[in-house]
């Protein structure tokens, strides 16, 4: 996931329970205004008409011109943006009151009203004619039927969202809300094709003072450029933002991107581990190593994989044979830390106590692993490990796993396949003989088209709302392609979505219990949380490195 995608997906936090509300602001720019160029190698965005977007890059581009309701700093504390004050949640967790700033304006000078938000939800996001991809985020199950939550105007700058059933982490969905001006979007209402092609919606000409920058141009597969917004609602006091332009420049290869940073042609980019040492020696460049919410894992196929993988002790034995420190040092070149569960350490919901630490210390023991396999009746096992080709990190992990498992008598065949093939032939499944359309989880009897035993892949966990990871580990999780099932885990995920988890302390306890259970039962071998390396020109100031490094990018500046 891109960094802006992460910001967008982060959405919001339990505002009342989180402390610091003041963003970090410098006194103002000392150097002259100039363009800031960020280099990226990920794919280009699909659209700037945000409601049609399904990818992180599109929402990332849009976020330059529209801040959103709030964001989070590196300590995951709430930072208000369009919000006048934090969202208020009723005691029963059913009503969310969203107060907006009064100085938000569309480009034509009209004020941004609560009606615009309610219109966007009711007439666009929830409307069948437009088919909003993520409409499901705004639905709840009531009496066995799926229905949308109910948005309601409270006054001209306040709206409320009413649920029928409490959902402790729904707040983060609310925080991800964006908006269209009702008076413009109405022209296209009911006509999906016209809406898709509407010029003002595709060139973000309506965004007024809602973000630090205004859209300038988007050359596909080349660059996305925005210019300083002099009317920016957060820039009145200190003149932010401090760059004349912000350009996202796409590079086809990491090597070209690294060279551009080294030559001073770009101000910021992510740096691959092998280049970190070389660039750190360059005084004009500053490298920040920051935690991420992504982790590498080894998945066990419990559908049509080797039967032994359905046994907890076998999964534990395999995990006991794969050294996590070794993997971090040899594959990630030191840029990571061992994972034992799915919640990253930066999350306030991470609990270390009681986790079983397979793959390190006493639980990195190949003799014991071999013994466990032998006593379970498994000797001379041959397994097939699969991962997507082109991802060097995952390929190297697969080779390391092969090497480690060979030492406990397990022979591993590596299969590298393109990403679309991995999705369709290995991860999607269906019950044999049925007319089910293939899905990632078609129930307990479903199997993939191609057999596999082990899979190297990466997942992400939102540190503020880790329960989203339910999709991988709950029996009916939408991305539980390995067929893992554990009643206790299902129950804990259910409780985390129930009113019981409205209490912050109780929520933390439930996550601790869930983390412990997963660290023992090992639906997957949690391998390592990865770090990211962010390379900046040294004259870029105001950067606060962390899990959410870009949260204050409006106040970055050049000095010197």
């Amino acid at each position: 996931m891109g960094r802006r995608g992460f910001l967008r997906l982060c959405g919001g936090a339990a505002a009342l329970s989180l402390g610091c509300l003041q963003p970090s602001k410098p006194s103002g720019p000392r150097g002259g205004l100039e363009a800031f160029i960020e280099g990226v190698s990920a794919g280009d965005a699909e659209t700037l008409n945000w409601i049609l977007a399904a990818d992180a890059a599109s929402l990332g581009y849009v976020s330059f011109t529209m801040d959103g309701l709030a964001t989070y700093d590196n300590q995951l504390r709430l930072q208000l943006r369009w919000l006048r004050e934090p969202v208020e949640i009723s005691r029963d967790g059913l009503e969310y009151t969203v107060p907006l700033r009064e100085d938000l304006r569309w480009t034509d000078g009209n004020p941004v009203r609560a009606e615009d938000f309610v219109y966007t939800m009711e007439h666009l996001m929830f409307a069948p004619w437009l088919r909003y991809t993520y409409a499901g985020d705004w639905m709840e199950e009531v009496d066995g039927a799926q229905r949308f939550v109910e948005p309601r105007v409270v006054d001209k700058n306040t709206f409320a969202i009413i649920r029928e059933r409490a959902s402790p982490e729904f707040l983060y969905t609310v925080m991800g809300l964006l908006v269209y001006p009702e008076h413009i979007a109405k022209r296209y209402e009911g006509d999906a094709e016209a809406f898709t092609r509407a010029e003002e919606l595709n060139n973000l000409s309506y965004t007024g003072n809602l973000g630090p920058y205004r859209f300038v141009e988007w050359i596909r597969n080349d660059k996305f450029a925005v210019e300083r917004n002099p009317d920016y609602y957060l820039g009145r006091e200190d003149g932010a933002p401090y760059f004349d332009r912000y350009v996202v420049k796409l590079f086809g290869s990491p090597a070209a991107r690294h060279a551009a940073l080294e030559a001073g042609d770009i101000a910021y980019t992510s740096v691959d581990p092998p280049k970190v040492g070389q660039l750190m020696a360059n005084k004009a460049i500053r490298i920040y190593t920051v935690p991420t919410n992504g982790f590498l894992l080894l998945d066990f196929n419990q559908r049509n994989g080797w039967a032994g993988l359905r046994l907890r002790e076998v999964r534990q034995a395999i995990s006991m044979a794969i050294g996590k420190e070794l993997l971090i040092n040899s594959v990630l070149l030191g840029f990571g830390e061992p994972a034992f569960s799915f919640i990253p350490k930066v999350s306030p919901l991470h609990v270390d106590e009681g986790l079983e630490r397979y793959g390190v210390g006493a639980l990195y023991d190949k003799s014991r692993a071999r013994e466990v396999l032998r006593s379970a009746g498994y000797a001379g096992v041959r397994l097939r490990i699969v991962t997507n080709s082109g991802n060097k990190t995952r390929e190297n992990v697969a080779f390391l796993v092969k090497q480690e498992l060979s030492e406990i008598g397990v022979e591993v065949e590596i299969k590298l396949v393109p990403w679309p093939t991995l999705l369709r032939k290995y991860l999607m499944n269906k019950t044999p003989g049925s007319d089910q359309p293939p899905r990632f989880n078609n129930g307990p009897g479903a199997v993939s088209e191609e057999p596999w035993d082990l899979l190297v892949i990466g997942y992400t966990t939102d540190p503020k709302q880790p329960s989203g990871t339910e999709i991988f580990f709950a029996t009916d999780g939408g991305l539980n392609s390995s067929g893992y099932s554990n009643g206790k885990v299902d129950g804990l995920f259910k409780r985390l979505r129930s009113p019981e988890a409205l209490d912050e302390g109780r929520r933390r306890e439930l996550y601790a219990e869930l983390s412990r259970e997963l660290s023992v039962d090992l639906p997957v071998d949690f391998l390592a949380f990865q770090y990211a390396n962010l390379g900046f020109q040294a004259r870029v100031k105001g950067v606060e490195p962390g899990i959410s490094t870009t949260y204050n990018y409006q106040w970055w500046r050049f000095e010197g």
Partner: protein
Amino acid sequence: MSMREYVVRRLVYSAVIAWGVLTATFLLLRLGPSSPADRYLANVAARGQNVTQVLAAIEARYGLDKPLHVQYLDYLNNLVHGDWGWSFSTSMPVMDLLQRHWVYSFQLILLSMLFAMVLGIFLGLYSAVRHNTRADYAATFLSFVGISLPNFWLGIMLILIFSVKLGWFKTYYDTSLPMFSLANLKALVLPVMTLGTGMMAAYTRYTRSATLENLRMDYVRTARAKGLPERQVLWRHVFRNSLLPIVTIIMFDLGSVVFGGAYLTEVIFGVPGLGQISFNAIFADDYAVVVAVTLIGAIVVLAFNLLTDVAYTILDPRIRYD
């Protein structure tokens, strides 16, 4: 058969071939196992939504749920009326997309071809005339090196040497520069060298061997015996006859490099040309873009083939159309 009749006949054949290419590309893409909605798969599933329903909804949004023959006829009908479709991976009309990006490919290819032709033909001639001398060996060595260097490696090396170490050029192509400016020309130096070096090396070899072959011909001996100056022998007789096979190769190169051949160079230097556009469209199953690019590519290749054949008659009057 007159040249006009010949050209008209070739144009008719070309139209049929272009239609065939369009139809085959359209059908292959739409009959393939993947769908343009596939890129939504993981995101949709990650939100616990019904993948099948959502994907069906997305396909309906773009008209992909209609029967194949209806989609095909709709596409043809729109095409006839100048509408090349909507690119859903870039959110803009296909023709606008191609119009904005062809120029980046065109300038890169044009300059690379010029670079390769001028240098390659000159070196090949020089090498042949100085047959078995040190100059010939040096040119032969250089051309083998040029042929052997992969584009992606050469491009990165040029960036590291001339941009990072020496700081003479920017590390990437800057689309904000005015098209007709020295700055733009400077920005194209490294991409042109990257794309043109391999072709230049090949033209050197072809020119050398064609020239050597002609130098041994009787008509050259006759010309020399008649007392013609060596320069006139070379340029008026040998060079003109040697050009025939070289023109064929250059035209073939031009056709193939326009759509795809420049892709790696475009990727390395961040040139947003048609190579990048078409490759990304293939991976995104953006069939409207793929069909358009393939069709235009086919037309360009057909046109160059026709031009090549016409050029033969100009270069060698003995060649006839029947």
